[in-house]
């Protein structure tokens, strides 16, 4: 049984990344999976944030809880799925991990600076291939995709959001 840790009113589930750079897009793929296979209670908003960077300030500022799905370079084996809290995330701002992360982590830094950053958790996947150009995921990241999905769903439930599987076509 899932124990609800808190009841949030505006849960933003944000997938960021560049799908044209293979594994870089895993966060976006995960949000699309969520859209395709599940419906959610009203307080949950799914957003494909792509590479919008600072343009995400509006959506981020309106949330009181944010679950980010993204690639995360931390020297682990490709396909490793990790969970970072907001404070652990802020500690990574200096390091340039991936191409969009330069702007997304800076967006988080700015949002924090402006008092617009909600409580945040990131579900990250260690990439293998960040090269241009293609939308296919590497084998390791493709295999990790369902696990990432599960972990994001878990976070949504922990925040008080309801998840209902859609009947598969």
């Amino acid at each position, binding site marked *: 049984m899932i124990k609800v840790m808190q009841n949030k009113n505006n849960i933003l589930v944000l997938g960021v990344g560049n799908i044209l750079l293979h594994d870089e897009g895993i966060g976006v793929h995960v949000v699309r999976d969520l859209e395709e296979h599940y419906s959610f209670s009203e307080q949950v908003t799914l957003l494909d944030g792509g590479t*919008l960077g600072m*343009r995400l*300030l*509006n959506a981020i*500022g309106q949330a009181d809880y944010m679950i980010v799905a993204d690639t995360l370079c931390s020297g682990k084996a490709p396909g490793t799925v990790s969970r970072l809290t907001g404070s652990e995330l802020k500690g990574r*701002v*200096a*390091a*340039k991990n*991936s*191409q*969009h992360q*330069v702007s997304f982590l*800076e967006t988080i*830094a*700015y949002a924090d*600076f*402006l008092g*617009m950053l909600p409580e945040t958790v990131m579900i990250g996947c260690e990439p293998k291939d960040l090269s*241009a150009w293609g939308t296919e995921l590497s084998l390791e990241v493709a295999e990790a995709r369902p696990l990432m999905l599960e972990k994001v769903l878990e976070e949504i439930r922990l925040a008080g959001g309801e998840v209902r599987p859609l009947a598969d076509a």
Partner: protein
Amino acid sequence: MVERLVIDPVTRIEGHLKIEVEINNGVVTDAWSSGTLFRGIETILQGREPDEAWLITQRLCGVCTYIHGVTSVRSVEDAVNVTVPENARHIRNLLTGGLFVHDHPVHFYHLSALDWVDIVSALSADVSATESLANSLSPNAPAIDFAATQQSLQNFVDSGKLGPFAGGYWGHSAYTLSPEENLLFAAHYLLALRQQVKAGRMHAIFGGKNPHVQSLRVGGVTCQNEINSTRINEFRSLLNEMRDFIDTVYLPDVQHLASAYPEWGAIGGFKNYLAFGEFQMSNTDQGDLFLPAGVIMDKNINQVSDVMLGEINEHVRHSWYAGSTARYPQNGETVPNYTGYDTTDRYSWLKAPRYQGEPMEVGPLARVLVAYGMGHSAFVNAVDSFLAKAGLGIEAMHSTMGRSAARAIETKVIADEMGYWLDQLQPGASARVSVSLPSQASGIGLNEAPRGALGHWISIENQKIGNYQMVVPSTWNLGPRCGSGLRGPVEEALIGTPVANPEQPVEILRIVHSYDPCLACAVHVTDNDQDTHYTVKLG
């Protein structure tokens, strides 16, 4: 002593720009501006549906979002000779105006202010002296807790991770504001960052979303159902917030900066100006524009000539395209041919547009001077008032500071006018006409993007796009030399700039940033190194 200095990439711009200068005894004696990325959108468009061009061209840039989209639909509407309904004309004006009202304050605070404002110096400001300063400059500005701002800046600096403030030339001798002025501007930088989110939201009311609106079509706009009192009031409320911000924060800040750096009213200027004009005021007279079209040569503000499009040629002699023929855009070609970076030969992905053979500056300063020269009363009053408050004469407009001044002035004038455009929206009336595309036609879409004059030239063959050529503002401003060897505007503007320390060329950045470069973003290039310098490997 002669030395060469390269800034690559130039940051706090949009796109990929490299600036190289020759410095002789501390003064710039020559300059080369290089656009370091090729997009190929013109090539991608060939063979596609004319009424879908706007979807693709809009993706040229998410900063100047929307503007390429509307230029595309205009080019097709010109080709088929269709006039959009009044509602559509007003919506498009509101969307264009909304773009200006968003982009210009962002440019001032987030892309150029830190060339003049020393963030680190703000940490030693006296808070109550800052409050007095704020009150004397603009008593109606929103109240700010300067102590809190200073503390959060301090926390940021203490964390060791300067983030967006890293790599600045803090402490450079060219920064001459007091710590209190620096703290005031730093607080406004943050305020502006929160405020611009609302301008984006305003744009999305009739655009559908921002960036990259959904509501454009050849023949009109698709947001007819949003033309209702609820949406109109929502837009008006956000607009009025922006107007307060412009009047009490943005404009006073630019005025103060101009008076604090008077010598920069004589550095970094150019002499020729071109404006296509914008904001169609009539469905029957295409020449009736709120921002008038015009040409000024050799700083002769009192002699504004009509724009003759046929006088435009794009040169490729010093650019990475095949051949050396300068072409009128309708007959333009995009045949990329990279031959290596060579400042004595070809050195940029930007072509070099010329008007009557002359390089032309486009953008806020061009528009404001054209309007001023034509006696447009809103602009005459705004410019004269600005110059009086800053203690400068009209000559000072032809400068780095003049560009910032013009940007702020036109933001105010446009924002003040937008309420009238809102008033003219008619709920229930049509916002779109259907259009059937001919098999052969050609058309031109002209516009003013926030950064300057913009044109799309389309030819339709067998109902598909045959040729498509775009001449964008930053091509005019940041393009290289032409076939006659004349420097482009930024290259010319850099000549004579004093550089106190080549390791920290803030003076050069002031001029380059004043053009609000927007070279169209694409792939970013990262380096595993966490240094402030990048090595770019081409090819």
